[in-house]
């Protein structure tokens, strides 16, 4: 389970504290750029879900701090059940570029969609179903653990409750949309199938009084394993004796023109439920 794993990593990091870190320069080879597709279409409960965007970029030298956008591509999404095609037009108002938008998208739970991208004389496709999610029951302050000292900082922990449907295998991504530095929590229902379950999430003192949007997002099992790999790669744990061999995170983007010049990223469609609360971070109990 992911949480166990995260805790182990936390534990290992604590032990690592006795060691020392040093920023060094390592000469790295750079591969030829690949297309990166960020197509995470989310349909918030209670909205039409008609506004969607897709972002295209490429891989680049590890040490630069700009991500090259892909401009001038032809992007469309087709509902395979209805045959309806939604064109995504390049947003020319965006300064960085590489953003493609659609304002007429029609999300349908369980329908299968195909993404098609034409760029640089190559055609990329990806197919995925739209996944549903149960609503958030409630978000409550975990009173027993309010104002606890974790990692040298006062934190308050909230619990996000939801009720898992018993007859399906469900996968969740709980992300606080307004807490942009953190990726949130991924979990499947292996250990709580059919139960009401809560995911803990804590806030730092300097987040006291901020309004936070909690999102519960339903995702597919294959997207779960993809995002799992991405999170561990982006988490920067490479090279330690406990690290697993870094994997190439292959998503569902297929290059129909040249198979070996595969694209990175993922095309996925999810329903999500969003609830907003104002965070209270208490001082530690005396």
């Amino acid at each position, binding site marked *: *389970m*992911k*949480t*166990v794993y995260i*805790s182990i990593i936390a*534990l*290992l990091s*604590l*032990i*690592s504290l*006795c*060691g*020392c*870190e*040093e*920023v060094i*320069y*390592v000469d*790295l*080879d*750079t*591969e030829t750029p*690949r297309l*990166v597709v960020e197509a995470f279409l989310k349909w918030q409960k209670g909205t039409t879900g008609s506004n969607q965007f897709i972002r295209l970029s490429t*891989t*680049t*030298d*590890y*040490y630069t*701090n700009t991500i090259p956008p892909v401009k001038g591509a032809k992007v469309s999404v087709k509902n395979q059940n209805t045959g309806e095609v939604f064109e995504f037009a390049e947003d020319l108002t965006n300064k960085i570029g590489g953003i493609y938008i659609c304002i007429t998208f029609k999300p349908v739970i369980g329908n299968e969609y195909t993404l098609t991208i034409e760029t640089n004389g190559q055609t990329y496709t990806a197919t995925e179903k739209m996944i549903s999610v149960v609503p958030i029951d409630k978000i409550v302050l975990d009173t027993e*653990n309010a104002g606890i*000292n974790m990692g040298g900082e006062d934190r308050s922990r909230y619990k996000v409750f939801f009720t898992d449907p018993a007859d399906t295998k469900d996968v969740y991504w709980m992300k606080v949309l307004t807490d942009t530095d953190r*990726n949130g929590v991924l979990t499947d229902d292996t*250990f709580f*199938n059919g*139960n009401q*379950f*809560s995911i*803990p999430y804590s806030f730092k003192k300097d987040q006291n009084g901020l309004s936070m949007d909690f999102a519960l997002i339903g995702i597919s099992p*294959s997207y779960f394993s993809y995002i799992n790999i*991405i*999170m561990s*790669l982006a988490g*920067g744990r*490479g*090279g*330690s*004796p*406990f690290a*697993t*061999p*870094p*994997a190439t*995170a*292959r998503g*569902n*983007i297929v290059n129909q023109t040249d*198979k070996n010049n*595969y694209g*990175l990223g993922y095309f996925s469609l999810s329903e999500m439920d969003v609830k907003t609360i104002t965070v209270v971070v208490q001082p530690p109990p005396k």
Partner: protein
Amino acid sequence: MNANIIYIKKKIYFAPLLKNNNKSMFINKCTLFVALFFCTSISIFAQQKHTFSGTITDQSNNEKLIGIGIYFPDLKKAFNTNEYGFFSITLPSGDYKIIISAGGYETVEETISLASNLRKDFSLVTKQNQLKEVVVGGRGGRAEIRKPEMSVNKLTSATIKKIPSVLGEPDVIKSLLLLPGVTNAGEASSGFNVRGGGADQNLILLDEATIYNSSHLFGFFSVFNPDAIKDLKLYKGGIPAQYGGRAASVLEIYQKEGNSKDFHGTGGIGLLTSKLMLEGPIVKDRASFLVGGRASYAHLFLKLDPELKDNSAYFYDLNTKLSYKLNQNNNLYLSGYFGRDVFAFGTRFSNTYGNSVINTRWNHLFSEKLFTNLSLIFSDYYYGLKLDAVGFNWSSGIKNYNIKYDFKHYLSDKIKLNYGINVQYYDFNPGLIEPSSPTSGINTKQIDKKYALDNAFYLGVEQNITSSLSVNYGLRYSMFYRLGQSTINTYENNNPVIYNPIVQIYESAKPNGSIIYDKNKVIQNYNNFEPRLAANYRLDEIQSVKASYNRMTQYLQLISNSNSPTPLDVWMPSDNYIKPQIADQVALGYARNIKGGDYSLEVETYYKEVQNRLDYIDGANLIANEAIEQVVLNGQMRAYGIEFMLKKNEGDLNGWISYTIAKSQQKTPGRTPEELGINNGEWYTSAYDKTHNLAITGTYDMSKKWSFASNFIIQSGQPVTYPQGQYDYLGMITPSYGLRNANRLPAFHHLDISATLTPKKNDGRRFKGEWVFSIYNVYNRKNAMSISFRENPDTGMNEAVKMSVFGIIPAISYNFKF
């Protein structure tokens, strides 16, 4: 009875040819097998030959001495004591001069008269003019040029204690890293790698009981208390038939029996740990006890910090042994080990793990030629985790019930048999999840427990074919049964991992059904013949060439895809999807004693192949995975190299230089031409590959008061994978990796020194103390434990971060004996 008669006839018929005809030798060998099965108790050369047998012990404490040679100068032959200090030699009647010479002890020279069977026990007396503690020279000293034994390293407890170590805590596993062909994943990483093998491929035996996790505190220390240990033996190749179950090596660690003469204690106070070992007679000269404990207390310093005061991180272990000599022919031993590591962050998180082992052994002499040992062993590895935040408790582990009956049959001065039977039952708990409180939303879940039965028969023959050529050949027949109760998934085409040709990745298959097996029903079984062969050809009195071959089958798999094992890793048995690892190794060697054994040189080269080495598909989630078969593929492994070891065995200055040049690779090709395989199906450098590995270690006894020791190690960096680029996905800056293990960390090296002060006032006093001053990593080399890549949170720029664990570490510890 018929068989006996036939046998004796053959014996008479071939007797005149025995000495000079190789062909008859072969037939003789066959008759011996017949003899073994039909008339084990018949004395083969009964007419004019007699048996000289006994034990060799240390006079001061009655500890049995292992591997001590009894030399017959007239015959130019030496016979060694076994791991229980027993020897047996059958020779024609007559008078023989014998010499028992072992470093640190007064040499025994006497003449024995063999007119009938002779039982004689020897107690060796410690040399009076020794500067320092006895280092028993029977093991760990000269190169073995007579016995068909190769790829074996021996270390005594005294040697291990002299090697400078981190924080002054002598460490069994870390001292192995100074030997040729042995490496690990770097500082503060657990386990060790032998000849390019994985840490899971080592069989670690403490008084014959299997230890599943050899490290405390994630690898900072090993689980063995050096005070409670007599010595150890590491088999890297040419592994005798009595051992099986792991693909790369066998590490045998022998605990002390306990002093049956007088009550004594040994202890030490260090910066991080303290230890105390007590031993003494229960019944003088017959029964003894040993109890040793060790605990770390670094976590007490955490209490001083108000922010960390609720946290703890400590370990402890306990070694116990009871030995009882019933009579000359019967000895009983009861050994136990219990160790635990404990981590806790307040009440929110706690983590406990460790080994427990209990072993009862009965040594029995059926006759002066037949030494037997019956062991009943229980071994347990437990891992527990409590996570309050999520509201669950997790536990996993492995229990092993083991019966060994081992026979050492000293047929003649030329032939020694070792045969026996080993039955093991395994109970694996891959994980039990329970809610930690009634309000927790967690369901209780037991991941299907797994059971297995592992039986083996073995026969090994150690034979002196001519005065120069000796061989040890044998066969182990292992039978492994994966047993119910269990539910086994079934898959379309019997294939739990499917290849997605569109996006070129491996994916878990969905089961299309399942089969429920009842308790003790056989789910899958494997049988394997494991031939073993080692030969030694003595070129002259000082040098020999050696060759060996062994096949080892490993039925247990450690489910781990990290470079070095973590305590959370789960063992599982082979089943219908996961096949046993089969290793074949050939090795050639040369050994030479220089200046009468003052120096010795050993050179060996090996080539090893392992079939069915597990490899994990990209992004495999192994924790609490109920269907491991869906994320693994059966790959292969190969390793080869050359090892050199030059030792100085005698004098005030001694030590060794070892150098290894080696390669270790892994490959998991596609199962069909369409599939890419892992890493494009190409051979890739395994995580255990260290091209160069040089270690120098030495001790110098300057005076009665001062002695010094030093190590220097330099080896190639750990294979790692560096990114070839980066990309942004949902705001997560993700490194893009190329082929596996294509890069390496910087070279790893450090120099360590220690000085031991033995104050003068110890003389003639029962209580003896010594101070050990040590410096680990003298020149403060910041060896990279890892190089990771991250986005700097302040600048937003990507950077490479080297993490190192130990800089220069001075330490002081005080050791005492009484």
